[in-house]
């Protein structure tokens, strides 16, 4: 693979990998570092990768493994140091915007508190838009497991939404 091919095929996956890493290591710099390491590994072993679909799955798996290695070797603080900085566009009343942003924050916290598999499956599907098959490849689980985890995650999120609306939790 030439540098040009790398730029056009591998480099564009950077944000997906970054978001995936961020969710595991919960540290911005660390996640960035991991994505960089993944790309260097891909570059060094580039004769192995041919089609893009597999490249992406392979990169994701590599990212996941590197994240787990880092989490294991360091004791990460699990405090939520990253509150997503959201900016809501549109000409809404400021008050309304604030409220929305709070609900979104609490959704974010809730998704972070889900079991790891559920969280990963839901993010890969609902944020990144991968197919069940691709997710299965990335997380090395079968399709039925992908569906079960997604179903549980969405169900929990739905219940949480109902609670937020009913009690403002």
């Amino acid at each position, binding site marked *: 693979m030439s*540098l040009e091919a*790398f*730029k056009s095929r591998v*480099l564009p996956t*950077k*944000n997906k990998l*970054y*978001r995936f890493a*961020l969710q595991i290591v919960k540290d911005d710099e660390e996640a*960035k570092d991991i*994505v*960089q390491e993944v*790309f*260097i590994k891909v*570059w*060094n072993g*580039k004769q192995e990768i041919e089609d893009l679909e597999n490249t992406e799955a392979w990169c994701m798996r590599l990212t996941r493994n590197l994240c787990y290695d880092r989490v294991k070797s360091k004791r990460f603080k699990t405090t939520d140091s990253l509150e*997503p900085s*959201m900016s*809501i566009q*549109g000409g*809404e009343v400021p008050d309304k915007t604030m409220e*929305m942003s709070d*609900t*979104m924050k609490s*959704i*974010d916290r809730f998704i972070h508190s889900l079991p790891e598999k559920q969280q990963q499956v839901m*993010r890969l*599907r*609902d*944020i*990144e*838009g*991968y*197919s069940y098959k691709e997710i299965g490849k990335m997380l090395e689980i079968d399709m039925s497991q992908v*569906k079960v985890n*997604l*179903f549980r995650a*969405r*169900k929990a*999120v*739905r219940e949480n*939404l*109902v609670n937020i*609306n009913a009690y403002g939790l």
Partner: protein
Amino acid sequence: MDSKRIEQLLEKYWACETTVEEENELKAFFSEQPVPDHLKEYTPLFQYLDEEKHKALDDSFDEEVLSKLENKKPEKQGKIIKMASWYVKVAAAVLVTIAAAFLLREQYLKSDVRQPVEESLSDAELREKFEEAKEALQKISSALNKGQEQVEKISVFNDAEEKIKGEQKEL
């Protein structure tokens, strides 16, 4: 967009039966204003999912990675040197054959194949071996006899059983 359709899509979404396209449709619907009141409670979720996709690395990351990759040119593969022409190939083949033949011949001469594998035994030794074998067989034979005696004892029980059966039939 038709809110009836959105309701249907939402039900499918919770049941994990939506396609990626349908999920995108939902995100698009909830990011557009205004959302009907009865669906408003789902707005933050789909907006959140849509927003999360915007968390991204900046362009300085690309530069950093690319500069690292450019400094780190991929390892060069081993060079294959081609032989000059066909007669070099033939010469090499002949050379290999001659060398192999020579080495095999050396090996053959070193190991004296004509020697018999085992020396024959003398008469006295043969007799000794014969006696040993005979003794062993006798031991086996006496052990078998002992076993047979025991088995004969058991056959008494068999006879008794036959007798009882016979008597039972008569009755």
